[in-house]
């Protein structure tokens, strides 16, 4: 049985470690904050200029000057700091953020990522995504395995790239892949969602990938 959006977020939360500074993208990645283990210190960075943001405010306490990168009203914590966009991207580009979790339209077996533009259709812009994937230490993509029965894990991306050779891990509703982007070791299927078979993954994946030894018996 494929993972739900919440289960994908829960799986992504296993990539968190105590003391991490983390940037979460919009959509399923935002849900990851629900699964930060009790007692683990994880500071969320919002690229509009805030480190350490708290839950949504109580009704009536919304502050127009206090929003996250998704333009949602949030609250501050005792750890919170505010800074300019230039300082924010110094954190991101300078490799000070430990983990970026974001969505994608396509990921290629070499770690290429496309998530910002569909030529002739979508003209929204990349926001901070290109800087995040270029500068953050570890990049985890959380996305549906296929879009309208078309595979999203490809040999090469067909959409304009957000970053070349930037993705370390892909969590889909069917399983988890790692990508050896630095040494060119390619993509490896390392986990399956419950009751998902290697055969199902094979038919729904256009990228080439290895299968981890631990999964060979499935």
């Amino acid at each position: 049985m494929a993972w739900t959006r919440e289960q994908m977020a829960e799986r992504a939360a296993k990539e968190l470690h105590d003391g991490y500074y983390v940037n979460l993208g919009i959509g399923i990645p935002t849900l990851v904050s629900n699964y930060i283990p009790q007692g683990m210190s994880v500071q969320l960075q919002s690229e509009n200029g805030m480190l350490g943001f708290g839950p949504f405010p109580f009704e009536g306490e919304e502050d127009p000057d206090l929003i996250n990168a998704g333009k949602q009203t949030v609250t501050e914590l005792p750890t919170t700091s505010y800074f300019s966009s230039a300082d924010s991207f110094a954190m991101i580009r300078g490799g000070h953020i430990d983990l970026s979790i974001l969505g994608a339209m396509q990921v290629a077996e070499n770690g290429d990522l496309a998530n910002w533009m569909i030529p002739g259709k979508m003209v929204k812009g990349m926001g901070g995504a290109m800087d995040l994937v270029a500068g953050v230490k570890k990049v985890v993509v959380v996305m549906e395995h296929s879009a309208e029965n078309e595979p999203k894990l490809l040999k090469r991306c067909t959409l304009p790239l957000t970053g070349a050779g930037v993705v370390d891990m892909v969590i889909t509703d069917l399983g988890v892949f790692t990508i050896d982007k630095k040494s060119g070791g390619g993509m490896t299927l390392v986990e399956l969602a419950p009751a998902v078979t290697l055969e199902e993954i094979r038919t729904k994946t256009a990228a080439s990938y290895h299968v981890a030894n631990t999964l060979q018996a499935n």
Partner: protein
Amino acid sequence: MKKVYPDAKAALAGLLKDGMVIMAGGFGLCGIPETLIKAIRDSGVKNLTVVSNNAGIDGVGLGLLLDTRQIKKMISSYVGENKTFAQHYLAGELEIEFNPQGTLAERIRTGGAGIPAFFTRTGAGTSIGEGKEEREFGGERYVMERGLVADLAIVHAWKGDTEGNLVYRKTARNFNPMMATAGKVTVAEVENLVELGRIDPDHIVTPGIFVKRIVHVPNAPKHIEQRTTRKRTDPAVPAGTGEEV
């Protein structure tokens, strides 16, 4: 020299001309210099190139200048919230130059700091890097990006004194401090205008040297794009969660 002007129109007098480049602070609708934007709309100046992270929403912020077609070109990182923008763009009536958000911030910071160009990994191997000079450092590809300056920068601050020293509030800071340094002329609107000595010099974010003119906007409108809240009865909720309303 007196920096404080009685209203936004007076603060912009003599500064606006067709075809100029204007930087406008803000992220989404947070920390935007809306009173100054309205005065620019009322002036009728046109063929503007506007540098701003976003393009407002329909009828609010820079959306006002899109509705009146005073903007010829936007340099932004994300414009997804503005329907008028998409219509004008798809009809070929508006140019857009997308910059990655961090590259945009750094182009403005370096422009204001007198640095003509810098190298960044952001965009290497993508369409953003095409046609730009590349260098390899430590085995990685870097793209050369140019510093950015403007004829006029308009910024919004929470507090300012008569010397032009500025303090921002929470996430309304965003692009405002860099833009204040990168305008040939910078005009600041401030929610609270105070006498000299009323801001602790250790707390000043933008020193007054960068600000030529100030206007007091005590009743500046503020907007919320995504109003997200949690109920008071809820137990402790993890960061960034709650019920969308």
